[in-house]
């Protein structure tokens, strides 16, 4: 059995604005969109896409499938699907986007612990449940494509990914920087009441990242 899949092809070296190209691929029950792209690659054409683990952990195969950001490895293939790159980030080639701007936005805010030598033993500490949930972020960057205001070339404006990363630090039991203030520097006020952002893995971004940062909820 075959299925057709329309894949966004874009090559900056060949000019043009990109176009959808349709491919027929073999189809077996249980196939994912990632499997279809691997089939296209092996059987037909050198389409560019990222992937790593085939089971939702590496975060590399996030793309827009039928208009919504999804992980290709966790999306069942259906005949006639359309795949495009994440719209929130600059295109590199085909389905590959530039991930750097998403990380660069965070750089001034030191989203890391103070560098030092490792301790000799594990200190006593309590990890808040928010931290446990937020650390499930696999950095796929798909959430940025659900945000109506994020744009990668405006460093004064963060997106859901950035607020998740700042909230991870906010709820880290040893962190001492003022993360709500950093979130305000990334215009988190604009998020009030929007509620449109979605995590591909189901992390409650508004409840566990945006609201605590907006309200400056005290650390436990």
């Amino acid at each position: 059995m075959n299925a057709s899949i329309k894949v966004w092809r874009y090559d900056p070296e060949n000019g043009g604005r990109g176009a959808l190209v349709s491919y027929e691929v073999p189809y077996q029950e249980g196939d994912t969109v990632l499997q279809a792209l691997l089939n296209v690659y092996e059987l037909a054409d050198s389409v560019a896409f990222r992937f790593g683990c085939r089971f939702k952990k590496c975060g590399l195969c996030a793309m827009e499938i039928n208009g919504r950001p999804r992980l290709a490895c966790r999306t069942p293939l259906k005949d006639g699907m359309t795949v495009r790159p994440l719209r929130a980030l600059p295109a590199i080639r085909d389905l590959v986007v530039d991930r750097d701007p998403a990380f660069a936005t965070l750089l001034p805010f030191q989203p890391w612990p103070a560098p030092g030598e490792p301790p000799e033993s594990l200190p006593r500490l309590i990890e808040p449940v928010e931290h446990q949930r937020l650390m499930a972020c696999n950095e796929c960057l798909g959430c940025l494509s659900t945000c109506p205001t994020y744009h990668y070339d405006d460093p004064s404006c963060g997106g859901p990914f950035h607020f998740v990363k700042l909230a991870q630090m906010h709820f880290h039991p040893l962190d001492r920087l003022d993360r709500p203030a950093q979130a305000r520097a990334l215009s988190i006020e604009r998020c009030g009441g929007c509620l449109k952002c979605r995590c591909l893995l189901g992390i409650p971004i508004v409840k566990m990242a945006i609201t605590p940062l907006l309200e400056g909820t005290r650390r436990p």
Partner: protein
Amino acid sequence: METRSYDVIIVGGSGAGVSAAASAARAGARVAILSKEPVGCGNTRIAYGGFAAVGLVPEDSPEELFQDMVTGGEGVGVPALTRDLAENALQGPCVVESLGHVFRRNSEGEAKRPALGRAGGHRFYRGLSSPAQGVSIGGVLHNAALGSGVDILEETLAFRLLGQDRVQGLMAFSLRDGRVIALSAGAVVLACGGAGWLYYPHTDCVRASTGDGFALALEAGAELLGMEFMQFLPFSVTHPPSYTGVFLGEPSSTGPQGRLINGKGETVMTNMDTRTRAQVARALALEMAAGNTTVHGGLVLDLSPNLETPEGRQAWESVKNTGLLEQARLIYGERAYRFEEPWDVAPTAHFSAGGVRVDQGSCTTLPGLYAAGEVAGGVHGADRLGGIALTEIFLFGWKAGKAAASGALGHGPPGIDARASQDQARMVESLFGRNGRHRPITLVRRLQKLMWEKVGVTRTDGGLRQALQEMDDIQKESGDLQVRPGRVFNTEVAEALELDLMLATARAMARAALERQESRGGHIRLDYLERDDKHWLKNIIVKKEGNMLQVRSEAVSPKEGRS
């Protein structure tokens, strides 16, 4: 051609690589990380996330862990390395917490029971874990690298080490824009993981695990040790093809009443929860070699008898709580998740137990070259315990970074051999737009199929010789490649370079497997089914001399590593 100069270059951007980079930078070195994938997206991120540590329960000690590792490794680990890990195991978790991670604690906030697990092969509770498993560790690595002030070259493939007698840098290819870069360095640390992807799709490793580090070291003249020991986990998905090889569980998670049944309906094994990964994988492998499989090529793992006993139901509950059953639920369905329906399972390539030969200072046999993590060999012997690879890679990654920094800073920056680097750059340039007969991906897939069939869970003398012959054929065909032009994200050029590295690693694995005429740990010879301590308490060393691979064996010194 672009050239850059550093004190220390780290090849690999996951657990071992980032800890090496962070420690080298803290020691004052100018450091670059080269990573084929975005930093933090390696096997550390997709791991189940257990870290074995000593001293968390009073009855445990480094000596006990050492003994468990010798038992699990079936006596052919390098004792000094095994002992180093056992004595310093707590440092691995301490390194990853210093990079921003947080392990599960008990209600008092302590890393003690009941917040500890016990993975296969461990006699004591040693297992630290994290609610989001390895994903949470991957999530701190990128920022930890940035926070350490190191240069990050992502989606950049190291394809050749530079230098005669001493490593002075390396050649790299940037996937992003097709650039070839020559990097000089006082020290190079290999921290780029194992060779699981040589068995795709029969692997639970990430796509980047093509064994590059073994090939780089070998080609430069360093010794490899124990390359015949690939660890196959017994239980992975057999179908659909999208998920073939995805990890399903450990022997320790099968409960007291789990049964392994072959394709003829015969019970092959019970009491798997008390057995090692190697013992259970061997049972599957032998049935598969005899052709006693299901239609999907695997065996049947029936966990339903657990539901009939209180301790079995308790086992299901505790396995479920660790998150280990998520894959079963999402791929095989709700009834499989509840143990009500049996699973179709087959072994999957998980971990290279062998690798680049190192001493206790992370030095390889080649000056200027260091190795740490899965790419290094000898710590685990013939098979490794559950939940100890992450401990190893953060502990030894950190140590290797320090050692490389001190080695490099004492040595001054080397020059780059202009002729050698230009030859390499021309070789890469010649790949773009080449119009031959074979696409690199076609040859890569052929090699992977060959590795699974002939250098996989079971091996024979004849099969290994055929494999080596066919590797030569693939090498010849790789001289006639068809590669797209275009500089931007040209994955075909990267695959062509990777293919060469994969072939070098594959040959070393097949040659070592041919040499070891016995079965031990992850290495099963159908023509030598028994373990033979009389002749094979040895390490097999592979080294390149001229254009030939030299293979020899050295006795394991039981005295070595005694404290």
